[in-house]
Each structure stands twice: as C-alpha cells, then as structure tokens.
C-alpha cells in the first residue's frame, strides 16, 4: 500500500498538475479546456492513432532505456541522438547493400545498428575513462559530428541515392524488413515493439538480478564504496556508456525496418532528447519508462488532433514540459512526506523494542 503510494502517487499528481496548468493556458488563450480534453481522448479511437501511439511509444521507450542505463551510474548520455541517427544511417546502408535470407538479413541490420551506436558512445566512454572528459560535453559534441558524418554518408557520391527532391540510402529489400502486425485500417504495429518490450525485460533483469547491475548501481550510489568493494570504476564507465550506446543504436530501427526501409535526409530527429525526458518521467524504472513513453506518444498525437479543431497545438508542448517538471517536484514532495511518516513509524517501533530489550536485559542479568 505504502509502495503504491510512493510509486504511483507522484506521477498521478504531476499529470493532474500539468493538466491544470494547460487548462489555465487554454482559458487564457480563449479556448475550452474541456473541448481539448474531449478531442485528446476521442482521437485514440480514430484511424490509426492507437497503433501510432504504441509505435512511437516503442521508439521513445528504447531511447529512454538507453538514457536510463547511464543514469543508473550517474552518467548523462546526451549523445543518444547522435548514436541512434548514425546507427540507423549505417544500418540502412549495410542493409540496403546486402542480399541475405530473411531473418538473417534483419538480424544483421539490428546487430550493425547496435555496434555502431556502441562504438559512437565508446568514443565518449574512452575519453571519460582515460582522460576524464565529461561525458556530457563529449556526447554533445559527438552529436554534431554525427550530423556531419550522416550528411557525408548519404551524399549521392558516397552511399546515397537521389530520390526526387530527397536523398536517401538504397532501400532495404523485404528480406531485411521487420514484419509488423497489421490491424487493417487501424494501422500496422511495428514488429520492433516486441523487441522494445524484450529490451525492457532485459534491462530489469540486468539491473536487479546480475552482478553487472549490482556493480552499476553501487558505482552510481557511491563510487568510493564500489571501488573498495572491488568494482573497477573505469571498466564500469566504459561498459555502461557502451551498453547505453548499443541500446541507443536500436532507437531508429522500428521506423527503418517497419515503415521507411531507407535512411533519408528527412528521417526523424530528436528521439534522443525525448528519451531523456521519458527516462526522467519514468524514474529509470522499466515499467515507469513504458508508461512515460506511451504518455509522451499520446501527447504527440494529440497535437495533430487539437490542430484539427483549432486548438493551438503548442498546448501539447506546455503539457509535456510541465509534466516532466512536476514529476520531479512531485517525487520530492512525496519523498519528504513518506520520510516524515517513516520517522513516526520507526520511532514508535524502536520504543517498543527498547522496552522489550530492557525487560530481556533484566532477565539476563
């Protein structure tokens, strides 16, 4: 019961607070909050919206997991953005160039993406471990370099092909695509949604059931105590960042293997930063991140629906921003409240045991 309160109450409070804030913003701009709310809810049942939400949610989920791995060790991998884009680009080039049997082709593309993401993050990891360069700075810089590198890679005279006004990589043959689940007019669910769920499960398992997860959390909590306990801090930094990069490498794949089949100049950007917000929203917990990712995707879709009824779509940005801020604040408020409650509880408990001990001491002497 207490657990439910500490875990679920803060995000619920945060969402209510963010909704109120948006309502105020809507009232000021002369729109009806109730209309907006109705539109946001009814849109879910229309067309492909529900499936779209789950599809984007899966992308955000993978990105947030990548961020969360770093967060466990107090490492801030801002470079998810560059890692996933470069990984998707290289994976698309490799996937488009190869001719392999189905399944194997797909697997190769996934592995290439993970390896590229890991390698790109590995640069930041080595700089951090051996030269003490802050991973925040180096990953931001690597994001810019990745953008340049991608532009070079998909030039028609490198690996790209000109398609109308757009430049893209060579399309991936159906053998390399990841088949989805079709809901007819309801849209097609990316097959990678299942992979995202498996990643979440793996993240949970790694963190709570393995030596690596323990060492990761110990290093995050107290690097000095971890060192004294035989954890190699340098190794942990490298592994954590590389692993984060490998997961980040998969962020672009649901769309690449389920919808686009090629990396283009106009391939979506910004998932890496969304991932940071979602990881914060989900407090690094695999289930929390999943809910956060779905909420974020739902709000994204609401922007379109709101636009259709003339409510400014920017209201969604206000909602997203305020929900992240208020989650952070709400957890703090609930934490303090719980601390006070715990104090009262333990004080009462210790008084009882102290009395019992005194009685026992009397018997013993």
């Amino acid at each position, binding site marked *: 019961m207490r657990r439910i309160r500490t875990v679920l109450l803060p995000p619920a409070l945060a969402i209510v607070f963010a909704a109120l804030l948006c309502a105020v913003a809507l009232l000021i701009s002369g729109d009806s909050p109730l209309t907006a709310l109705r539109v946001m809810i009814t849109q879910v049942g229309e067309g492909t919206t529900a499936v779209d939400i789950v599809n984007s949610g899966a992308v955000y989920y993978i990105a947030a997991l990548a961020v969360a791995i770093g967060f466990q060790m107090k490492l801030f991998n801002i470079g998810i953005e560059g890692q996933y884009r470069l990984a998707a680009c290289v994976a698309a080039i490799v996937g488009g160039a190869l001719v392999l049997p189905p399944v194997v082709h797909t697997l190769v593309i996934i592995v290439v993406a993970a390896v590229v993401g890991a390698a790109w993050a590995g640069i930041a990891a080595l700089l951090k471990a051996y030269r003490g360069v802050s991973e925040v700075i180096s990953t931001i810089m690597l994001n810019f370099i990745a953008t340049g590198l991608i532009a070079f890679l998909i030039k028609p005279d490198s690996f790209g092909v000109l398609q109308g006004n757009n430049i893209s990589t060579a399309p991936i043959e159906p053998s390399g695509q990841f088949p989805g689940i079709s809901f007819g007019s309801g849209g097609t669910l990316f097959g990678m949604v299942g992979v995202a769920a498996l990643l979440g499960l793996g993240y949970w398992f790694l963190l709570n*059931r393995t030596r690596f997860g323990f060492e990761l959390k110990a290093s995050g909590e107290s690097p000095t105590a971890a060192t004294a306990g035989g954890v190699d801090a340098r190794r942990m930094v490298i592994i954590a960042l590389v692993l984060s990069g490998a997961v980040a490498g998969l962020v672009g794949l649901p769309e690449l293997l389920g919808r686009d089949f090629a990396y283009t100049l106009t391939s979506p950007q910004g998932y890496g930063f969304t991932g940071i917000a979602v990881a914060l929203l989900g407090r690094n917990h695999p289930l929390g991140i999943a809910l956060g990712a779905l909420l974020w995707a739902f709000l994204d879709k609401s922007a379109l629906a709101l636009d259709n009824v003339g409510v400014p779509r920017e209201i969604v940005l206000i909602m997203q921003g305020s929900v992240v801020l208020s989650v952070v604040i709400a957890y703090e408020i609930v934490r303090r409240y719980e601390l006070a409650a*715990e104090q009262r509880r*333990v004080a009462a408990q210790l008084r009882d045991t102290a009395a019992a001990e005194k009685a026992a001491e009397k018997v013993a002497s």
Partner: protein
Amino acid sequence: MATSAAEYAVELTGITKRFPGVVANDDIHLAVRRGEVHALCGENGAGKSTLMKILYGMQQPDEGTISVDGHVVRFRSPSDAIRAGIGMVHQHFMLADNLTVAENILLGAEAMLGIGGAARRRIAELAATVGLEVDPRALVERLGVADRQRVEIIKVLYRGARTVILDEPTAVLVPQEVDELFDTLRTMRADGFTFLFISHKLDEVRAIADSITVIRRGMSVGTADPASVTSRQLAEMMVGSELPSPETRDSTVTDREVLRVEGLELQAESGARPLLAGIDLVVHAGEVLGIAGVEGNGQTELVETIMGIRRASAGTVVLAGTDLSHASTLERREAGIGYVPEDRTRHGILASQPLWANRMLGYQSRPPVSRGGLLGLLDRAAARRDTERIVAEFDVRTPSVDVPAAALSGGNQQKLVVGRELSGDPVLLIASHPTRGVDVGAQAGIWEELRKARARGLAVLLISADLDELIGLSDTIKVMLRGALVADADPATVTPEDLGAAMTGADDGRGAVA
C-alpha cells in the same frame, strides 16, 4: 556581547530529535555553567553528535528548547548560533590546505574587522590565547594536526564565540599533544571561556572536565562529578553494563606466513616525497599486526595499496604464497582478504541500499551472493539469509534486513561491515580503525569478533589511532612515520606515551620502542 546573570551559559531542555530508524535524542537535558569545561559522554549512536548539531543550529529539534545566558533562542542555522556566541570545532577539520592560517581564519568573516591590520592584530591576540606559535602567514598544509586544531579554535573565537563545542578533539592527537591542548583549555577557562567537550576517552574527560553529562541511547542518564567518579563507573553509566577491555589473552601466533609485503612503494601524484617508501612487513596466521602512527603518515595509503585500490610503484604483495602485486581489488578480495575501511560511510556501505544489498558489496562474484555463470546471476535469497546471519551473530540492531543502511546508527553499520568482511572465511583481515566512531558496546563486540577470528587462525593487519586498542589487540606493533615503518614495539611492554613519542619522531631509539 550581553552577558546576563543567568546561571547557565547554555541550557538544553527536553530536546527530542527523530530520524528515520532512530530516535537520536529523547528528552535530553544539559546545563552548562559559564566558565566550565563540561564533558558530554556517551556511546556513539547515543546522540551526542546530534545534540551538538542541534545546539550549533545545524539541525532543528523536534521538541525542546535551547537557552543561552538564560534567554530562549531558536537557531535556524550555524550563523544564528555563532551570533549567540557558540562555536564548534568539528572532529574533522574544515580548513583549506592551500590557504594561510590567517586566510583560513578570515574566510567568511571578512565583514568583522576587514582583512587588514585590525584583523591581524586580533588574530595575534587569539593566537596567544590558544598558544598557536606558527606564523599566521604560513600555509595550513604545513601545519601539524595540533596546530590545525588551534587554528580551528581561533576560527570560532574570531567569530565571537564564548562557548566552544569541541567534538572529539583528542581523537587525532598523540598523548603529548593532548596534554598541551588541556593546558590551553585550562588557561582559556580561567579567561572565562566555556567548553563543551565531547569524548570517548574517559580518562581524559576526568582529567579536564568540571562536570560530566552522560547520555545513553538518546536519553540523558545523568551527571557525574569528575573528582569522585572512576572511569569504570562512567563507562558503566554509558553502556549500562560492564566495561569491555581490548586485551587479547593467549598468543595464537603461528609461523605460517599469510601476508608478506616487500619493498612497497607509492609515488605521490605531485611527484613530491613518496607516500610509501620501502615498506616490509609480514603477518602470520593468528597474528594481529598493529600499525601505529599519527594520521596522515601513510597508513591509509598502505592499506589501499595492499588492497589494490592504489597502484604500487614498486614492491610485492604476497598472500599465502600467491603473488598479488598486480591483482585487481576484486581478485585480492577473492584471494581471501577482508577489508574494513577507515571511513565506512564513504568506503564501506551503500547508504540508500538495503542491508542485504550491502552484504553483496565486495562479494558480488562469490557464493553465497553469486550463483556464478556467464551473466553473474545474483542469489538474492542467499544474500538475504546471510545478512540475517550477520545481524544475529554480530548483534546488528535493525528492524529488518530490508531497511536502508543509512537508517542504522554508526556502530550498527560498522558491525555489519565487520560481519561482512569476516564472511566467506578470509585468511587476512585489514582493519582500518575498526572501532572508530563506534559505541563502547559495539566496540567490545567488534574486539571479541576480531579475537575469535584470530584464534581461528586469521591474520589481521590493524590500523588504529586508539593506542589502547592497538596495544591491547596487537601481537606486534610497527610505527609508521612519513610513509615508512620506522620502529617496532612490543605490545606487552610498551606504553601509549612511548608509542606517542615514536609516532611523532620525538623518540631517539629509547628503550621500549626500538
């Protein structure tokens, strides 16, 4: 400063303070007369530190009142306390090594007399009061521990303190320096300063205090008259039971070598004098080798180098015939070294993790915590069971093994750490200040466990600033000075004073310490 005719300089009434997991202070009363040295005794975890933090405004009491010179006051922060004339000298000095003595004193107090001639004159006056003889322009990093302490005292006096809280001021001093400190306190007492003196060392308390307040388990037990009370009676008031002694009975030393360290060297990062130079030592099964030394003479570095946390620049470390000179910390632990670090909060525990997760630290690769395998699966049920064993065997007082380690008092945390490091049949235990900041009850428990392990054939490398503990537990004592082992002593014959002299380098090869 308005001094009224009130009887007490400081009076605490009915102070209660609760933390998660502990009632640190429970209706405590403390009355300190003006111009006296008032000692506050109690086990660690009894609530002394909390009480002093409340008096110094670092924490707010849940209940109770503080009066200064008869007026009820409410301190929201240490600056309120300083304004009321109360200053605190912390156990761990808070000085900037790279600034001069004068700069350290003036830092944050520039508004009082500026930083010019007036300030210099005031510092000179205060230096005379506390007997500081070094040039105020000297860098603090060049000062010895006793002088640093004087600088700390001047710092609080400069800010206008008439009542000074001294938190375990003798813990870092050798016996000769303690005598000097006491002389200073006596002179200052005559000048009308009031001292609140916190200490574990009961002989010292009796030597310096005009009155004593004892607290136990967060409650004030009563006051004692130092003229008539014995150390034993005091200790019994503190513990509520018999006084433990660190003495080991029969020698259990064997001729089987467990640890052999040869020519160990550690270079300083700045390239100055090496931190460790030519360290040779051997610890046998069933032997406790004690290292005596003033803090900062390389004991920490020695321990961390043997543990592989620091990389030796030369020399070998051999454990039971296996060369570990280039092994990682984890490999050394797996080879059978248990390690009780000197600072448990920084190096020993994961404060927000439950006790059973703390049991895994350092053992994450071994049964019972690990199931092994490629993934290194953890056996959480076994870790939990084994934590329950430690809690029972080592008398760790906790509601359950699921509470975070931070909820435990210092003594109980330490018992958990010692219990953990004695798990899995180590062949060598490196114990750095194993009973520092631990109450008398827990201290006795830890000594007893060390003795039992020694009898089973464990080799122990003991580092301690508590000379009684060192002499009482050790089979052999080596003295460490400026990164080298400079002398041996026989614990059967050596006195704390002899050891103190050897530790400061004042000893010129006199009898007991050679």
